[in-house]
């Protein structure tokens, strides 16, 4: 009722299609109305399901580890949540510390360097000594052993193996 008596009804403040139909009516050419109603409820349902699914798989920690193309992590069901710590990665027989390639001999020195950096930037704090090891599930223990030994030599007592959650 109000809408039909409104001043706006007489003005040109309408949609482009509506205005065209009022100003230049083409009754002879178009008999059907051009403006069609879209059924938006189904679209909103689909969007809501997508949002719920994505929220369920959302992780606030983000991508802490980048897994290479040929690398498969071992699976475990009772794994702890990932935290940001120095990462040693074993990939194609090479060792990477924080994505920088290091040799087996220089690994202890590099780990000690990390420890020194932390103590300089956090004076008075105790070094947590946590090291993350990321390797392929088919690795043999003799390859892992050299990293575990290097970590022990550098005083990293807390070792965390990266695993895929089952």
């Amino acid at each position, binding site marked *: 009722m109000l809408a039909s008596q409104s001043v706006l009804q007489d003005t040109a403040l309408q949609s482009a299609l509506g205005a065209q139909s009022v100003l230049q009516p083409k009754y002879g050419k178009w008999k059907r109305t051009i403006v069609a109603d879209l059924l*938006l*409820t189904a*679209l*909103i349902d689909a*969007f*809501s399901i*997508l*949002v719920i699914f*994505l*929220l369920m*798989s*959302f*992780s606030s*920690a*983000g*991508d*802490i*580890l980048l*897994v290479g193309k040929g690398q498969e*992590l*071992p*699976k*475990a*069901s*009772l*794994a*702890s*949540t*990932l*935290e940001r710590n120095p990462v040693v990665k074993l990939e194609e027989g090479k060792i990477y510390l924080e994505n920088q390639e290091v040799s087996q001999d220089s690994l202890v020195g590099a780990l000690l360097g990390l420890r020194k950096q932390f103590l300089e930037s956090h004076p008075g704090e105790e070094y947590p*000594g946590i090291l*993350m090891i990321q*390797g*392929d*599930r*088919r*690795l*043999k*223990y*003799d390859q*892992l*052993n050299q990293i*575990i*030994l290097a*970590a*022990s030599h550098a*005083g*990293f*007592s*807390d*070792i*965390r*193996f*990266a*695993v*895929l*959650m089952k």
Partner: protein
Amino acid sequence: MRRHNKHLDFEINLIPCIDLLSVCICFLLLTAVWLHIGSMNVKQAVGGQSQAETVKKPLLWVYMGQGGQLTFNVQQSSLVPKALANLKLPGLNGQANLAELAKVLTQITAKDPGLKTALIQPQAQSSYEEIIGLMDEFKKQGVTDLGVAPL
């Protein structure tokens, strides 16, 4: 009695809802993590304490042998009977028999509930996957303080 002439049915403007949901979907798709990575935590001794200072706790040593064979050795516990304290568990299809391992661990922890520490001694040729599988099984049975002995 006064009658209401207003219509009860009305239309909600759905366009802002669609806008909001689209923005949400774009944000979640961009920040989605498809691989759920966790960590298996292991405490390694770095030799900071003398043996005299170390508190004697029940300890389970597990030696990984050829073909998935596991050898158990419970130390510093008088509650676990000898038959369980020194036990050999044969492998299954060249891998550790995790089902049997779960049974043995249940029996050992039932005898000594204070047993929370286990040390795994793999061989040079033991696979990383197998070691993690063992650790996972230990954690399931309540043995949470785990360590891996170097070669």
